[in-house]
């Protein structure tokens, strides 16, 4: 058996998801969107803050989903990109006095470049080896942020305090509510762009690489370019999420961007359904709210309770939220027939 054959017969690391199954129908999308717009009008500021964090983590989870679900590459280093985005925004706002909204595209571009460059050496690695290389990035990042050389800008271990923006044009909105709608608009824009990206030629190239690298290169796909591009896009979106996160939390410090965050994002992706972009928000909800639920059961055993809940999810619905959505769809279809 030749080496090529061996690779071909190997089961793909990520289950192939047809591109139509990657998104929601129009009707469902509109309902979700309406809920996201209306709910904040009726809840407390604290809940609005949590919903903002929900959107921000959903963006970061979706970025990972494009990388893993789209192009079939693993990453445990998303926290590093998130941190770079957060620090870029924070430093520009606090040291350069830049408007918060302008810092986000810069954070995105910086992270895109960072991810693209990191993608170059990562090209030679695949599967678990790539996961380990990105893991190294995630463990190194908090310490790099503490380095004395950058301390003047990063604030070292003390971190940086970020000023929360007020609503512009004298709009009668609280800071939290303004930031929520601001985040919502950006999230929707990035979601729509991502869906279109995956439906485009580039997206098809990503998926071809995911399903079979050799076949893809035989079809004329520039494997190296698209693999690094996927890394860049994923890092760029994560960077924007990081920047938004810094503004929402009003604080950046190295301790906020440990490997724990990378693992949480990875977890969110799996729970939401690998390769199913709308699942990102479900995954994000899981990583934000389930630890709180676990804590309410028992303080000392919150980690264990979280583990049990996670185990149940993986055991009962291995494909995450996507599986639930499919089941729901089938049941609906049955009702319609009757």
């Amino acid at each position, binding site marked *: 058996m030749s080496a090529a054959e061996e690779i071909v017969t190997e089961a793909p690391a990520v289950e192939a998801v047809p591109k139509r199954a990657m998104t929601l129908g129009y009707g469902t999308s509109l309902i979700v969107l309406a809920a996201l717009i209306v709910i904040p009008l009726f809840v*407390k*500021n*604290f*809940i609005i*803050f*949590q919903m903002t*964090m929900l959107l921000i983590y959903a963006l970061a989870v979706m970025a990972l989903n494009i990388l893993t679900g789209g192009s079939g590459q693993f990453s445990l280093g998303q926290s590093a990109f998130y941190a770079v985005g957060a620090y870029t925004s924070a430093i520009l706002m606090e040291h350069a006095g830049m408007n918060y909204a302008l810092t986000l595209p810069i954070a995105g571009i910086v992270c895109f470049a960072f991810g693209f460059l990191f993608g170059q050496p990562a090209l030679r690695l695949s599967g678990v080896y790539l996961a380990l290389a990105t893991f190294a990035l995630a463990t190194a990042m908090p*310490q790099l942020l*503490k380095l*004395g050389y950058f301390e003047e800008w990063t604030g*070292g*271990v*003390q*971190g940086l*305090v970020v000023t929360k923006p007020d609503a512009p044009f004298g709009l009668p909105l609280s800071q939290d509510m303004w930031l929520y709608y601001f985040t919502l608009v950006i999230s929707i824009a990035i979601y729509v762009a991502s869906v279109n990206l995956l439906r485009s030629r580039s997206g098809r190239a990503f998926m071809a690489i995911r399903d079979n690298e050799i076949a893809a290169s035989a079809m004329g796909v520039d494997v190296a370019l698209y693999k690094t591009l996927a890394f860049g896009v994923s890092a760029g979106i994560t960077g924007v999420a990081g920047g938004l*996160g810094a503004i929402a*939390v*009003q*604080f950046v*410090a*190295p*301790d*906020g961007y*440990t490997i*724990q*965050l990378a693992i949480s994002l990875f977890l969110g992706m799996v729970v939401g359904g690998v390769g199913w972009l709308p699942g990102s928000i479900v995954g994000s909800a899981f990583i934000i709210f389930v*630890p709180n639920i676990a*804590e309410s059961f028992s*303080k*000392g055993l*919150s*980690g264990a309770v979280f583990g049990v809940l996670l185990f149940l999810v993986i055991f009962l619905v291995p494909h995450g939220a996507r599986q639930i959505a499919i089941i729901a769809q089938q049941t609906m279809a049955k009702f319609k027939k009757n």
Partner: protein
Amino acid sequence: MTAVRLSLTALASAFALIVTSCNVAMAQKTYDIGASDTEIKIGNIMPYSGPASAYGVIGKTEAAYFKMINAAGGIRGRKITFISYDDGYSPPKTVEQARKLVESDGVLLVFNSLGTATNAAIQKYMNEKKVPQLFVASGASKWNNPKEFPWTMGWQPSYQDEAHIYAKYIIKHRPDAKVAVLYQNDDFGKDYLKGLKDGFGDKASMIVAEESYETSEPTIDSHIVKLKATGADTFISIATPKFAAQAIKKAAEIAWKPLQFVSNVSASVGGVMQPSGFENTQDILSAAYLKDGADPQWNNDPEMMKFLAFLKKDYPDGNRLDGATAYGYAAAQTLVKVLEMCGDDLTRANVMKQAASLRGFTPDTLLPGITINTSPTDFAPIKQLQLMRFKGEKWELFGDIMSGDLSN
């Protein structure tokens, strides 16, 4: 005309009477969110999970203490509801939990939340919301800044205070010392180093060598070798327990015998001294402000007996050898004192006012002679420590209680 004037006067005085009586009524019982006739809601954030989970014991001790206070009738008939959340030592999570406490649970104040970066993350928020961030559980000196952050107050002696005390001791007893400093390259180490330099003041040239290490380094041996090579005869180790033990061991290994100081953070007998080998730790100096539960000299101390009785009856899981129990007990006791001083005026402003007027208060587990004093310009409740020397298998306190204040 006179009649009109008369009735006007009467009206005015009647009005004045109403106003004053209103004031009196207001002064009797005033509440902010989180306080009522029957309840005082206290928030708290602890790293029950994550890298600093060992400190979670502090939160558990405090919960047990408030439970005991409630069982004994509460504070002026009001029961304490202690809401403690886990932040896993992650600043973004701390922000979420603090907002939950303030906006969703409606606590009167956030008490003794733990960590430097985690508290820094919420300091601005708490001050914007004007909710007391009371008795922060961190030794950073920045909690004592009533001008900029009038709603934040520390509790334990700051790292800088402790460093001042070592500097004072060295200047007084070893004026010709050549001091080598090893410090951890983070907020803890740097705060401390600044304290040392301030403490030496114009004698800062006594520090002949400074070495910093990263917590990621597997061993700090090379730093110790370098410090020995400078010919220093006094060694101050500003390290967390694992590295402090490594430093003591390595110094013994290369036969470097300076006068050694270890920070209070690493003064644990079980965590640092024993693993370093008792033969290597003789005559090492440190400073303390809490009574050590492992030290038999406190066995018959009436105040310590109260603490031990509390552990036995109300918190049987608590380990007396773990300094975190004595810490949590004393911090909780300080809060109860402040709440008692508030009387029936349980507003956030009054809580800060009373917390800033503590005079000579002594929780049971503080060393005898150390008192808690605050004022509107002094938000550092504990500023005193006592030096101690390691003899045999335990610390022996010596000398007077020393203040970290540089002016005396």
